[in-house]
């Protein structure tokens, strides 16, 4: 073949070189494999505990089982608020096979929510843990559920979740007492009271729902399940059943509540009925009202906007959160203060020519021609201003202030509802503190007939009149008897009971005069009269500032008051009614008080036909919702 020895040598060297290079490739491979080997060492030996935990979390998922809130009942155990099962469409982002955009694009047409809205909802919960469901649509229809079920395999990240939802059987009725629930806010979560809450939880926002939230709230349970990568349950490890919230039994009487609501009707106003012997609230109405059921599902922006921007402020509880000039109702307290301080002799008379002058100013009586010579009884029955101007002048503002405060005005009554207003009883000290000026004696004259700086809430009016009529005994008003709370093992505050000194004769004189207001011929409160049930009361007509300037129109109509109790010697019920721009108290407010007290009286006498009682009993026949 002609290969030289040298050629063979070269060929041999050549082969050696190729073999050596092959070995070199082997060394490269060994080092690469060693790197891989140490990678596995690191994952499976060094970090194996960490990954074991990750694997555990991967397949075990805790699902919250929502606990229903406790029911709220009236004093006869008729249901005012309970729960119903409802369904939410939720998204669980963990292990979703789709991007958010894909998920939302498929879901949007099916549930009728725009892509933007859905993304917005998701973004608001973006920072929460990925396995926590995000609610995309609440309280969905059967059609929505069907859509999700039909797309179970295409959209494994979307599912339907059951949630007990608040239901207020009377809709708008008693809305301000019951309040409403809503999602806990970021601000609330900062509050120590909501320490064990997490974002998305439901919490009482107003009324009893807020006040007794800790009692009504249940204890959410959980279910620990094994899931596959699509979040589908493969088995269950353990379960802690949810514990329903405790029921709340209120002192409210649905029949009285309805009577008051119907009589106020579409007008703006407030009514409250108390049992002065105990402080129990029998009825509490604020109009216009709202439907708390709207809050049970997430309130739409439009609905919320309507409630907030409504100039009549339907969310405001006018019984305890608004204060008004008491008008002539205040004369009752003036009379009591006068008698107790002995500034006023029960037999004293005053001549009323229709006006009176004090400190260089003329103050008019409402009756142009004057009442002539009037005593205390007549001054109350006919509501003579001049008579009380004189008492006010004698008493002076600080004595008026002292007695009025003692009798329960100008301070919170302590009712078990949130955000109570204290009203205002002015004093020279107050004027100095707030306006940094001295009190003008002329102002006292206005205060004497319940005008000027003095203002009371309807709750205070009922409470104070009831206290006076009961001989100076003030029982803290309440919607839930502390005994009921103790019964379910929760801590309850003790009810406050006050007794201020007042002469029996003074109470008798004033009570008799108030009886006269309702029952005597020409009395301003005759519309509150009930045969057989000695109703006593006092009308009030609080001037609206614009009216003095001769402005016309509904907004400048006077506010109408009526505060009354019955029976007048041993009062069982005291009622305060206030109608905004209602006109005269005797015409606008007294009939509402009449309706409440008549219902009370009929029930007491066993004459009440109770069609409402039957109606509610039927609705509440539904079983209580338990998750």
């Amino acid at each position, binding site marked *: 073949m002609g290969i030289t020895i040298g050629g063979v040598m070269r060929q041999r060297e050549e082969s050696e070189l190729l073999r050596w290079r092959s*070995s070199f*490739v*082997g060394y490269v491979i060994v080092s690469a494999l060693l790197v891989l080997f140490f990678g596995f060492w690191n994952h499976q030996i060094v970090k*194996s505990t960490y990954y074991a935990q990750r694997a555990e979390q991967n397949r075990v998922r805790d699902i919250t089982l929502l606990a229903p809130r406790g029911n709220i009942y009236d004093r006869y155990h008729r249901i005012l608020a309970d729960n119903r099962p409802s369904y939410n469409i939720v998204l669980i982002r963990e292990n979703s096979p789709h991007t958010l955009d894909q998920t939302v694009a498929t879901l949007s047409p099916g549930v009728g929510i725009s892509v933007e809205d859905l993304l917005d909802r998701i973004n608001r919960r973006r920072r929460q843990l990925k396995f926590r469901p995000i609610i995309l649509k609440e309280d969905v229809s059967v059609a929505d559920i069907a859509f999700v079920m039909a797309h179970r395999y295409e959209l494994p990240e979307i599912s339907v979740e059951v949630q007990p939802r608040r239901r207020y059987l009377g809709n708008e009725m008693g809305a301000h007492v019951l309040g409403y629930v809503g999602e806990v806010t970021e601000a609330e979560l900062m509050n120590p009271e909501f320490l064990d809450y997490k974002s998305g939880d439901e919490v009482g926002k107003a009324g009893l729902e807020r006040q007794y939230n800790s009692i009504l709230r249940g204890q959410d349970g959980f279910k620990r399940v094994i899931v596959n990568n699509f979040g589908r349950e493969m088995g269950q490890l353990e379960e802690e059943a949810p514990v329903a919230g405790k029921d709340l039994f209120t002192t409210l009487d649905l029949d009285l509540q309805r009577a008051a609501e119907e009589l106020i009707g579409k007008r703006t106003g407030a009514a409250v009925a108390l049992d002065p012997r105990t402080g129990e609230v029998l009825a509490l109405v604020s109009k216009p009202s709202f439907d708390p059921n709207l809050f049970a599902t997430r309130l739409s922006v439009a609905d919320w906007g309507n409630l907030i921007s409504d100039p009549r402020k339907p969310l405001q509880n006018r019984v305890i959160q608004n204060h008004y000039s008491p008008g002539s109702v205040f004369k009752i307290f003036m009379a009591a203060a006068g008698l107790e301080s002995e500034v006023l002799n029960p037999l004293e008379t005053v001549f009323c020519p229709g006006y009176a002058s004090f400190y260089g100013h003329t103050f008019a009586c409402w009756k142009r021609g004057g009442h002539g010579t009037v005593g205390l009884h007549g001054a109350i029955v006919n509501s003579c201003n001049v008579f009380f101007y004189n008492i006010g002048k004698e008493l002076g503002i600080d004595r008026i202030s002292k007695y009025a405060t003692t009798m329960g005005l100008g301070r919170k009554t302590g009712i078990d509802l949130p955000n109570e207003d204290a009203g205002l009883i002015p004093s020279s000290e107050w004027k100095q503190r707030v306006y940094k000026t001295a009190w003008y004696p002329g102002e006292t004259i206005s205060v004497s007939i319940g005008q000027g700086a003095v203002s009371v809430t309807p709750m205070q009016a009922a409470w104070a009149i009831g206290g006076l009529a009961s001989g100076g005994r003030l029982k803290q008003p309440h919607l839930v008897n502390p005994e009921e709370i103790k019964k379910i093992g929760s801590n309850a505050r003790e009810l406050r009971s006050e007794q201020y000194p007042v002469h029996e004769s003074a109470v008798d004189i004033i009570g008799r005069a108030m009886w006269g207001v309702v029952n005597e011929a020409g009395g301003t409160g005759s519309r509150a009269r009930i045969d057989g049930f000695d109703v006593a009361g006092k009308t009030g007509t609080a001037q609206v500032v614009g009216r003095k300037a001769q402005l016309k129109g509904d907004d400048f109509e006077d506010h109408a008051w009526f505060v009354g109790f019955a029976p007048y010697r041993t009062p069982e019920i005291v009622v305060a009614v206030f109608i905004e721009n209602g006109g005269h108290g005797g015409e606008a407010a007294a009939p509402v008080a009449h309706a409440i007290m008549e219902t009370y009286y009929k029930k007491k006498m066993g004459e009440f036909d109770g069609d409402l009682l039957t109606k509610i009993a039927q609705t509440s026949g539904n079983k209580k919702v338990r998750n």
Partner: protein
Amino acid sequence: MAQPIASKRFSQDFDWPLFGAALLLSLTSLTEIYSSTMNEPSENYFLRQLAWVILGVILVFIIAAIDYHVLAEHIPVLYVLSLGALVYTLALGRTVSGSKSWVQIGPVNIQPSEIIKMVVVIALARYLSELRQSKYMTLVQIAKAGAICLLPMALVALQPDTGTALTYLPILAVGLFIRGLRPAALIALVLAFVLVLPVSWFFLKDYQKERILTFLEPDRDPLGRGYQVTQSKIAIGSGGFLGKGLFNGTQNQLGFLPTRHTDFIFSVVGEELGFVGVSVTLGLLAFIIFRSIYNAQTARDNLGLFIVMGIVGIYFFHIVENVGMVIGFMPTTGIPLPFLSYGGSSVLTAFVALGLVIGVRRCRYVN
């Protein structure tokens, strides 16, 4: 030089340890494929893989019985046929997950790009072994060798199947390195490769860019592309030293592992058989590689050496990329693990390669 398979001589010269290692890996593969797909029995992954393995074993004996010189002799025809097959695939192939890389033959789908690697290995080995003896290759030679490999590779890349196309590169790299490159040429090629990387960025598809970004930063999209690797690492790490036991891998059984019977089969091994199982499996793969290198070095001629080293390059690339991927050391690509991943093309190619290696060894004393 072809020997009847039944002869005593064939049996004596046959590389039984190498074949045994491959069989053990196939058994592991079948077990873990059974384990990872037992919840979807209708797909019959286990039985189908079993059929492929049996076919592969038969092919090992057939190929080992053929003298590789005969194959090398006919390689130009095979090479042209292969190019034709790749063009056919490009034109009429089936598209699976965005790549036109499959052709249907009867009831089965195969990926021609896999098996054609073996043709490229032999073609390149023949070219390199027939070069005039010299210490270093000339530029023209490098270019010709490059063309042999890059032409089919380009057709695969056009499918587009970048992952599989990349597996053609180690054949060329190993071949050129062993045949001999001037230090300057070696450095120039390495530099060229490094420089091409950033430029090629602009030619990558979005999903490919995304994969690379995800590799560099796995938490970038933990539910999307990073998800696979995250879940795979959880599976492997939670396997610990001894593993959770066969059929007990929770990540596997509850479906958290993606493509667990194909590309991510090694995660299942890691989870169910633990560090011990991983070490044994990696050990078997390493044994196949080093036994092959030994076979290359003891081959009768340079043709045999180049064929086997080309195969070593392919095996190595697949192993490092696939095993590196499941623990997050390498970016995610759809490159299967030889002998272990489910799939006919992958299994057949691995066994054909094995047959070639055994054939080279069998012929070492023939003279």
